[in-house]
């Protein structure tokens, strides 16, 4: 087992390294560069060349990549090439350190993602277990239909519907979320929960249904345990483990999936930071965000795998 875990860890690090290469290559082939974007359409070729030199963008791509990667290992993401430009002590044009640029958006996104999970997990258990236990009942069908239709609505449409209802028609909540305050979080969290609850609750429902049909539940019922006790003692504990995997994957999805919801609500998280950085070709910032998102995704998957190992002993020996 430790060997399996070690291999997964090595795989995770390798994935991150490949991601860093891909991100770097992708941003390299993006048309335009920060110098061009900053100087705009009235730029003279000399002006662009000068700024590019001052920003160190004229150095070959591999040199910049190696420099950047060696910094990343020390958790130093370098400096922005378009935000807060100023001449430093040596006269070199430098931007704001990427670390300080991404800190607040990361924290805000973590809050949004965290609060979403806080509601998503219990709600999914509640809905999933109920639907599983009363499988085929009207309650089950109603829940299936409503959660599925919520999933079928694209995130931004659901967000707009919520804004229209609760910020404009009946103005009780802010339409856009300038800060991570409780009132400002309601609609973005509702949107995220709305689009993901169908998936997670169905995972739990499937687990519950499977367990309800298992031999030990039949035995428990046969020995005369009341249904309530069967579900509390035998079904729910056994349904938790496999569904934890679903939630771990959901964390990975949230890391990237926040982007749209954040844009719709002008929420100051990684989505907004990322869009701004791409539009100005702020390479170091784009790379830092992408790596962080990838890291969250990789770690979440790793955790999901480990949870799966823990939940299903057969996988441990499947090597």
């Amino acid at each position, binding site marked *: 087992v430790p060997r399996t875990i070690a291999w997964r860890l090595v795989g995770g690090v390798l994935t991150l390294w490949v991601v860093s290469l891909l991100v770097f290559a992708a941003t390299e082939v993006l048309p335009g560069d920060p110098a061009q*974007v900053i100087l705009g359409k009235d730029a003279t070729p000399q*002006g*662009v060349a000068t700024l590019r030199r001052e920003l160190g963008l004229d150095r070959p791509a591999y040199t910049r990549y190696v420099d950047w990667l060696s910094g990343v290992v020390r958790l130093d993401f370098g400096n922005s090439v*378009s*935000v807060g430009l100023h001449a430093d002590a040596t006269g070199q044009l430098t931007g704001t350190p990427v670390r300080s640029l991404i800190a607040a958006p990361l924290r805000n996104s973590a809050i949004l993602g965290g609060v979403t999970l806080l509601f998503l997990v219990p709600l999914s258990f509640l809905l999933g277990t109920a639907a599983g236990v009363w499988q085929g009942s009207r309650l089950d069908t109603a829940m299936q239909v409503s959660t599925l239709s919520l999933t079928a609505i694209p995130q931004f449409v659901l967000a707009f519907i919520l*804004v229209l209802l609760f910020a404009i028609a009946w103005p009780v909540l802010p339409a856009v979320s300038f800060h991570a305050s409780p009132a400002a979080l309601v609609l973005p969290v509702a949107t995220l929960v709305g689009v993901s609850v169908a998936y997670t609750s169905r995972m739990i429902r499937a687990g519950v249904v499977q367990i309800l049909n298992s031999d030990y539940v039949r035995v428990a019922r046969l020995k005369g345990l009341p249904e309530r006790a069967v579900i509390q003692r035998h079904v729910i504990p056994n349904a938790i483990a496999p569904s934890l995997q679903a939630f771990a994957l959901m964390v990975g999805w949230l890391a990237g999936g926040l982007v749209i919801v954040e844009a719709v609500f*002008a929420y100051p998280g990684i989505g907004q930071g990322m*869009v701004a950085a791409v539009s100005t070709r702020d390479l170091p910032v784009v790379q830092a965000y992408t790596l962080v998102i990838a890291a969250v995704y990789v770690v979440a998957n790793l955790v999901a795998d480990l949870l799966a190992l823990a939940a299903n002993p057969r996988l441990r020996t499947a090597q």
Partner: protein
Amino acid sequence: MRRSTTGNDAPARDEARRQGISRQELLKRAGVAGLVLAAPGTAGVGRASAALLKGSAKAGGTLRVGLNGGTSTSRDPQFPPGGNLDIARAVNLYERLLDYDGRAHVVPKLATSVVPRNKTATQWVIKLRKGVLWHDGSHFTPEDVIYSLKRIATAQGTEGAAGLAMIDPNGLTKLDASSVLVKLKFPYSDLAGQLALRPMPMVKAGTTDFTTPNGTGPFKFDTAVQGQLERYVANKNYWVTGRPYVDAVELHVIEDSTARLNALIGNQIDAMNITDASQIPAVKSNGALFLQASPSDGFNALCMNTQVKPYNDVRVRQAIRLIADRPQLIKTAMQGYGIVLNDMFFKYDPSYPSSIPQRHQDLEQAKFLLKKAGRPTLDVTLDTADALTGMLAGDIVLSQQAKSAGLNLKIVRHDPATYWTTVLGKRPFVHDAFSHAPFLNMCLQALLPSGPVNKVDTSWNDPKTTKLVAEAARTVNPKKRTAIIHEIDQIQWNRGGYLIWGGLTWFDAYRTNVKGVVPNAMRTLGDFRFQNLWLA
């Protein structure tokens, strides 16, 4: 077009109201402007006094503005702006020697006058406004002006350095406590127009660190949250009495246009710029909001390379210009907003020749010209991008109009992000766009063989134009200069390579409690001049 800024003295009135000056000073200034800045239109400021005294503006409150373009490249106001946020910060915290008002006319700001010292326009004296204080409490001095101009002129490769190319950085001298002598490297009669441009802010002598901005502007820097919010507070020492009205301004960065409108409707902001013209009906139908459409001095221009076939034939150029149904283009491509233009630059410029007749669509004449040019049916390609409101839409409408004259106009669409830098100059028929620039400067850029804009637009190489531009640059007398400019314009109208059919329009939305909003030909959100707005 619903509102017009020309032939209407509202902007002059508003400019005066905005400056917040006494009747006496107003009349004095009107004289100064007429005399010194040689801008015929500015004399009209004198008419404003009556409206000015009626003022019922209320002080106080926080004005919350939502805008896109929130990437802040630098807090150095002279640095190329990352977006609207940088421009807004620069004009609210800093000021220039001269400035453009809402009609794109030059008006005095930190300088009260800029006058030539000799007949050849190579030496100029800048008189400074007295009693102006920096935000740190120190006095605005000639040393600050010398430092700032030198800094701008020597910042290699920047727009500012290009704009002050005529200034000799070592020829700046303090004459007395309130005047500076400027020596030029070559004659330039419109120094005033250059000094009023965006990248010409005055900063305190010796400033190299702009983290905490120290300007003379109506607002002082308060706080900022990177990429989200900047907050400025009223400068109690501002030299214009009674300005600004509001206690503070908050600039909220909301890149998504729908989120911006939602924030406005939800009363989280008071004003916003509209970047998506499809929002206009929603703003107009909402009783809590109003729309401000500002016909601007910027314009769309289709550029034919006059050195390349078939555009080197003047008859082909004339035919293409005659094909455009300009009112129709404005109606369909610009949602009906915008002014019809006449193949010449900057309608709001005081030296614009309104005597030249408006060119109308004439398909028969266009067909006739094409036939005479030996091309009764002609295939041409226009390289364009969906980079500005009405840009691609206008080109498509034009290609429809062209069909009826036997011209097959093929549209090739490029990536908007890189269109300006990679397509312009590589293809013979392209779409360029301009915001306001001083006319003479535009001539140097776009009509001289050496001009960088000319190289990518029309490759205009006309000895007569070159001679006239040089003459205009030497001519200090405003009347004589205007006459020369009219000649340059007439040549463009007759034979030029530009098809200029309509002006760009800025759209902004405000909540109805925001007062003092007037059209502004320069930029969106009234060129960000928040000192003139007040909250009811």
